[in-house]
């Protein structure tokens, strides 16, 4: 489907050039990897960010998209012995703060002046940090562990640009909705222990699944 739209867009006449664009976005990224449940217990996680679209050719542009998200869980450690784990000692916080930077072509069709379906394929890098903390009351406790990883990934999606506000000048305001599939390779999150020494792996996961983004922005 995506390739069909891409080909159709490239074959279409120069009815109107693709727009430049700056938008703010809210999104949702699928996390089918069960290991991600450590920091997020739902299959979709919310993101926020923005994108910049640059016109390259008629019906063809380049999108640069940046998304950010942060999620966390209280981790209950079961199987605890009554002799040493009490209610406060049997939990810790596991959190993830991540960003993704994606770049890729966007090909659109001008069905009407304000209705522009498009397809895009983007590749890029996911940068994330897993954080473990067993004492949220203090910022100087011994067990504050942070591990980072870079993950290559990408998305393929279909979308709609809705640009209904017509103005005499070039600047128009519009909205877009994008649905597709996102994927990021599983990576090892390695941390330097609090006391130093060799890095240790504290988490390993990737992303994958349905993703959606909605945004509003300026088209010019």
């Amino acid at each position, binding site marked *: 489907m995506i390739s069909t739209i891409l080909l159709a867009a490239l074959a279409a006449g120069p009815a109107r050039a693709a727009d430049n664009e700056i938008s703010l976005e809210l999104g949702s990224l699928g996390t089918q990897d069960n290991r991600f449940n450590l920091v997020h*217990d739902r299959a979709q996680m919310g993101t926020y960010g923005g994108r910049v679209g640059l016109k390259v050719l008629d019906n063809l542009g380049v999108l640069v998209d940046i998304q950010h998200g942060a999620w966390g869980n209280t981790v209950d450690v*079961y199987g605890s012995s009554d002799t040493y784990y009490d209610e406060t*000692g049997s939990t810790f916080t596991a*959190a993830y703060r991540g960003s993704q930077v994606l770049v890729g072509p966007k090909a659109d069709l001008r069905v009407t002046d304000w209705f522009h379906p498009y397809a895009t394929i983007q590749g890029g890098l996911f940068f994330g940090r897993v*954080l473990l903390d067993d*004492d949220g009351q203090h910022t100087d406790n011994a067990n504050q*562990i942070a591990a980072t990883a870079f993950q290559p990934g990408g998305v393929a999606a279909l979308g709609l640009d809705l640009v209904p506000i017509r103005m005499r000048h070039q600047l128009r305001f519009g909205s877009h909705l994008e649905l597709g599939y996102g994927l990021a390779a599983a990576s090892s999150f390695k941390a330097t*222990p609090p006391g130093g020494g060799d890095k240790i792996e504290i988490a390993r996961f990737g992303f994958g699944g349905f993703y959606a983004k909605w945004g509003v922005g300026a088209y010019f």
Partner: protein
Amino acid sequence: MRLTSPLLPALALGLTACNPFQNLPNNGYYGIDQVLWDPTSAVAAVDGVYITLPNARALARVKDDGTFDQVDLDGAEVVRMVANPDASKVFVWDRWPVCQDPDVKKADDCLDGELSYSYELTVVEDGQRQLVKSVPPYLNRLAFSPDGSTAVAYLDYTSGDDLPVDGVVDLTQVSFINLQTEDAPTSVSIGFSANNVIFSQDGARAVVLSRSSVVVVDLATFEKTVEYPLTLDANQQVDPSSAVLTPDGRYALITITGSSDLYKLDLDVEAIDIISLDAAPAALSVNTAMDKSVVVYSGLARADVIEHEYFDISTVPLDEPVTAVIPGSTFSLLYNDGSNTHDVYKLDIASLEATLYVMGNPLNDLLLTASEHYAVGVQRPENTYGSGLDGYQDSHWGLGVIDLVNDQDLSLVLQAEPVGTAVVEEADASYALVLLSGLDTLLQLDLSNPSVPLELALDAPPVGIGALPDGRFFITHDSPLGLVSFLDPAAGTLSSTAGFGALGLQTDDTLPRLDASN
């Protein structure tokens, strides 16, 4: 650039904002079925403290420089571990899952009934697997010869746990392990429930006690040299409860469960004598320096001192029965760890005089300092107690301190239940170290003036305390991600190592050792 004062708060604010641990997102809950680390499993060795990681099915070595590492057990998980007497090695009973279906790669994919475990005994030294011995997995205890060259694996069934079975179980068997070679262990059939092993001081012989028989094994050949039947009636069960060797190594003294008979085995001329006592002993202890044994009874208010030449018995009357004996050089300390009596006795072995100390509450245990100047014991609350100040003391945990030189005793009331106690001595001072449940402090009591303890702040509430081979101590803490402190009592310093619980936080259940056909 010179930082002016208005810039400092801004800089501090900026740094705070950069702290990634501030305002961590926390939107839900996640459960982990097993603890990340088990503080009660900690075993101290010369190269660090070894701690099991149940969730990761792994073993960590925690060092006092703040670092830690994972011991590679080739995918096996720790069942139990113990250090040898000089703490140079750690012996690990470990196991790994095996699926009968060779195509299955993950434990979760293996059908019920097709998943089993294989076992081994691994010798770990300096964080590395040095030696692997195939020992029947149900032999769950080790006894070490005095020189550390031989270990004897035997079954201790006092816990009543399910026995790990790998084929069949021979309940008469013990396994002799030569720790200096890679030779396979030698199994020796001793007798039913062979669960007590003592060694001659020269390390040449092991005396193994089982139901109704005692066997002497030559440690050079691992062959039985003598077998002593404890009864000639096959229908009679004679279960040894404790055994000691006389300092010259010639005699083994054996007490029998529920019997007032004390068996004396002559290991040189293969003879058995029975010494009749007036009741079944509660404890038997050898005072090596004085070459005498002390026997106490739970039902008799007396101690019997037995000399080792003619085995004559001298009786010392006491005010109350005692059940435990701690040998000193010229005396033995006697106390009762099983009832609500408060008495502690210092029994002079030469003069047979008993000095009485009366504690505020019953004793759980008693520790003797190396110089034998002080004894320190944890006192437990009494089940019933009166009113007033007596009732207050009776209802609280306490610490008893006995000055054995000046014959003085003091009972202190503790704020909470102790989770660990240790004693340490320097050239000019003796200290008791006390950890209290739920408190982030370590109490260091100068035993010459124990009423004014020094408090050392801890990073987290303690769970336990253990001695390191070099005279320092390690303290385990209530911290799910792992926290161990190292205490140097001489310097009064504490350092800590954290985060080791996060090792293998996310593990998969891939079956180990698939290439080796399990």
